């Protein structure tokens, strides 16, 4: 299960978060944990360089893209490497939507589209679409494979 996708700005403000199967009372802990993880480790990290962490049997992969940091949390089949796949899909969709590694402003300007992309990428806690062209089509209400 892909437990959470969370995008924060460089200040640690959370911009987008999607939790799946995480009890409401635990979300706050996760938020704090992830943000702290980012603050502690993401300074000076290159765009899209993947960092990893784990907590018990839950894996976390996170990275930086422009002004935002992206965290994905998963368990079971969503281990570090599957999460790397997921985060790769998310970053490429973000770059696609924003045209470049986003600044915070740009990210917020494209907020709606980004939410739609995430909706196509993660569907009820499972990774769905991984191909960025396909995602692009789907958020414009086009079929996944066009004729």
């Amino acid at each position, binding site marked *: 299960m892909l437990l959470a996708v969370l995008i924060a700005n*460089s*200040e*640690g*403000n*959370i911009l987008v*978060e*999607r*939790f*799946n199967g*995480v*009890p*409401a*009372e*635990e*979300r*706050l*802990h*996760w938020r*704090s*944990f992830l943000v*702290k993880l980012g603050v502690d*480790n993401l300074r000076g990290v290159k765009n899209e360089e*993947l*960092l*990893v*962490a*784990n*907590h018990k*049997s*839950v894996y976390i*992969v996170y990275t930086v893209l422009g002004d935002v940091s992206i965290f994905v949390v998963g368990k079971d*089949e969503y*281990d*570090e490497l*599957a*999460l*790397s796949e997921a985060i790769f899909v998310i970053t490429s969709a973000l770059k696609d939507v924003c045209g470049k590694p986003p*600044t*915070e*402003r740009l990210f*917020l300007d494209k*907020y*709606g589209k980004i*939410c*739609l992309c995430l*909706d196509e990428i993660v*569907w*009820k806690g*499972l990774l*769905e*679409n*991984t191909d960025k062209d396909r995602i692009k089509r789907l958020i*414009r*209400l*086009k*079929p*996944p*494979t*066009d*004729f």
Partner: protein
Amino acid sequence: MAESSGTTLMDLITSDGSSSKPTPAASTTAPPPIDSTASVGPPVVAERRSKKGTLLQIQSDTISAAKAAFNPVRANIMPQRQKKKPVSYAQLARSIHELAASSDQKSSQRQLVHHVFPKLAVYNSVDPSLAPSLLMLDQQCEDRTVLRYVYYYLARILSDSGSQGLSPGGGIPTPNWDALADIDAVGGVTRADVVPRVVERLTSEALNEEVEFHPRRLQALKALTYAPSSNSEILSKLYEIVFSILEKVGEPQKRKKGIFGLKGGDKESVIRSNLQYAAISALRRLPLDPGNPAFLHRAVQGVLFSDPVAVRHSLEILSELASKDPYAVAMALGKHVQPGGALQDVLHLHDVLARVALAKLCHTVARARVLDERPDIKSQFNSVLYQLLLDPSERVCFEAILCVLGKFDNSERTEERAAGWYRLSREILKLPDTPSMRDSTSDEKDAAPSKATKDKSAKTRRPQPLIKLVMRRLESSFRSFSRPVLHAASRVVQEMGKSRAAAFALGLQDIDEGAEVNTYSDNNESYDPDINPTAPSEGRKAPSVSNGIGSKDTIASLLASLMEVVRTTVACECVYVRAMVIKALIWMQSPYESFDELESIIASELSDPSWPATLLNDILLTLHARFKATPDMAVTLLEIARIFATKVPGKIDADVLQLLWKTCLVGAGPDGKHTALEAVTIVLDLPPPQPGSVSGITSIDRVSASDPKSALALQRLVQAAVWFLGENANYAASEYAWESATPPGTALMMLDADKMVAAASSRNPTLAGALTRLQRCAFSGSWEIRIVAAQALTTMAIRSGEPYRLQIYEFLHTLAQGGVQSQFSDMHSSNGEDQGASGTGLGSLISPMLKVLDEMYSAQDELIKEMRNHDNAKKEWTDDELKKLYETHERLLDLVSLFCYVPRAKYLPLGPTSAKLIDIYRTRHNISASTGLNDPAVATGISDLIYETSKTRVPDLIYETVKTKSALPDALDDDLVNFWAANLADDGAPAMNRVNEFLAGAGTDAPDVEEENIISRPSMSYDDMWAKTLLETTETGEYDARSSGSSSPDSVGSVETSISSHFGGMNYPSLFSSKASTHGSSQPKEKPGASRYGAYESPGSPVREEPPPYSSPDHRRYESFENPLAGSGSGSGSQSFSDGRPSSGNPQFGTALYDFTAGGDDELSITAGEDLEIEDEVDGWYYVKKKRPGRDGKLAGLVPVLYVTPS
């Protein structure tokens, strides 16, 4: 204020790029200026305060919004938003209602797409009152982007399941939504009203077969799956839709094969594939229906679909179904698994997760017992699985390795894991002969491997031992720069270690690791070095060098070369990767090899302050798991655990560590017990921590505890070790008074102390060593440690036979006098504490202990005299004489039981010579030896309770440990072990739970962020910080000394608190004379601690007897000591406890049984026979009043419960 909750993000979003340039700038330089109450930390209180106000406002907003919906002629509200004021939810809602009405206009669509919908996304849920407008848009609007948003929000309305945490969540809490629950009466639109309409609408769209409509059909179906699965009505509707779609498009069309994900193809087949995709994806989100043949049939069909995501989903469904009914799945898959079949095609499908699902599916089918009679099918699936070992993606390859290793979930049995190691080390990968499909369809990502295969196809076809493939693949992964890859590779090595340990534990035949693996090939060069083109396999050289037999590889040499690479990974910057590497090393450590290297790696790692406590504890738990797998490693693991104790005492969970000590001591077996005990108690020999010293940073023989917190933790740990030593030395030394061959009162007792010690240590070095350590602790430790040491010595005195008892007796006597301290002064490394007026300051504590021993000795003397008299006079013992003797015996037993657990049936306080006489009396009077009903601890009922609880939850871990151990010949006495097991459950309940949870691989709960200051980082998240405050109130109670020693001004205060809570929590007896202080504020805090205390105290002592019907009086004993320590912190002197003592209301009366001399100001001297009024009882002490003042003029004070019998 009312509107301000959670507006930061809204603020940012609302501000237009141009007009609001300053806003993001401000947010990056100085966070707060945006809106101080917004997402900034402290909002919590503000927000809560404002909640009620908000409610009212929301209420009116909602109503007006609803009105607006019916009366859309109002002015467009958008201009209002231009004023850079953050948009409220109500405003957004209103806009949607209005714009929906004019959705045919381009401008409205633009506003919806660019302003309204994106901002609405900020909220974490969409309230039902929007549904009518959304449905209206859905019906009337033509704009695709608007529609896409509409589906998005409809799905969110459906998914809102409140507290179940299933909604996508995130964002600012939607005000109306919460409020609506309260103002239902006002006529708001409820979810119950709209959901049926939404479902109806989406259902009809999902069934719409119009060609042009099909993209919408897909989205409608997707939105429907968001409905909570608890709604069976929607669920059955969904099944119906999905199956009806699959009915039409599910049948495979042969000629369409091979269009994998490619654009083009005719329109009909593309639409068909899209629908297949949508249906299977929806099916994947529906609950599994294992018994349903249609379900299975459709899933199997899905493997043939052309859409890669659809194939992935159907494989995932199949692999889940296979875990329930492998036979049905295997049969249904039939020829797909055969060479050239659909499953073979998946091998080359460009979808990583599809191949992962394939690996799982193959593994599940291949290991299924029900298919034992169809080895052909099993081998086909196995062959697919083995081919996945060559997969270019690490994710897939690692999954395949884990499957081969028998790791599936966390519930595999040891046999499966062992078989996994056997497979990996023995089996050969033979590629099927059919031509590879690779060349035709793989796209870029697959290009590299497919090229490699083409070039080397001749070579890869050669059969290869799995182990070589895997080793080489892992080695190359360890050269990766990607941290996730390193982490995953270490994890795979760890799993490999687990399987290997399982194989050794079961003693699998044929696991000779010296055997050569090149069975199928002439020389090394024929192996394909390009399994993974990203890294050259230099690793190959290592084995041939390290292994002296030329070019032949053995498993051992392959492993050695792998481990070499693994060890170098410790240099990774990421602490999580390093932790995983250490775990892998622990698992790969063989019990028969030197662990120096591992030890030094761990030691140097632990010196790094950046390790978070949770990770360290994880490693500690790994030691537990390792022990469970290989009990032989007890001593090694203890040595490693010792590094934790000395290096990071402040970070590790002391309970878990002690549990490890205990289990390892039992597991060490008869031969290892001495070493095991040494490994634990070596902690006591360490020099005290030198504040600020950096030298010897990697030396494990030096304590690193430079800050007060870890110094404190270290002390706690030393206390625990001292206690452990006292409690278990007799077990480790196999020396028990009731089994001692040497009767007391013989010549030994005539020796002087030195000779006695010499005699003792030659007889039993383990016990003698423990004694020496404890004696030193009783002198040179800190106050608390000295006390525990004295108690530990008493325990040993009571349990050991002569001459140890006498030796301890003499020592305690000296200690009480405080006289000969100078004799020990060379051992006395000062800790800066005043040793007290009496030299050791332990006098008052030791006197009851000495008294017990005194009584035992004098009773023994008495007995010997009596026996001589009888012998001389050649008289038989009369019944009265015997009765008197028996009563003395029982009385002493009761007394002794107060100090530590002894087996009542066997223990002879009057010495072995009394056994016969007592037996005679017992037989005459039909007294069963083990009733123990007179025991004070039983009488108070405490231990009954403990025993009950412990009985019901004997943990698996220990149970299994015990099982394995008791299976060994010459292992422990079964009863003893069961007794232990029962007690461990009780002992380490919290620790035990942690261990068991770890072993079960559980734990998806949220982490606690350490060292916190979450609050001090203001702009952490939205305004739901209030939840944090809720949590905090509970957290602050526990030790918050964690929170950064230096960063906050009140850190000193917090350390103070932690000191008291430490002692409170740990319940280490520090017998400051201020007993009464427990009655103060610290009392409530104490309570939870009291149960933990059991961890140290209780009946953990391995004693050779069946479990008595009570757990142990010594729990009780500690209770009696524990009270005084709490709150007294570091030695506040005596306090009178006239203040705040709760009076019990109805006083009880009693009589003094023995003389008692007050040992402190709070205590009261009493004389036997005196009448007393018992006011109160606290932890083993009565607060009593005399009728008239005693010689010292005192009228009231504390006396031990035992000394008074209530009348």
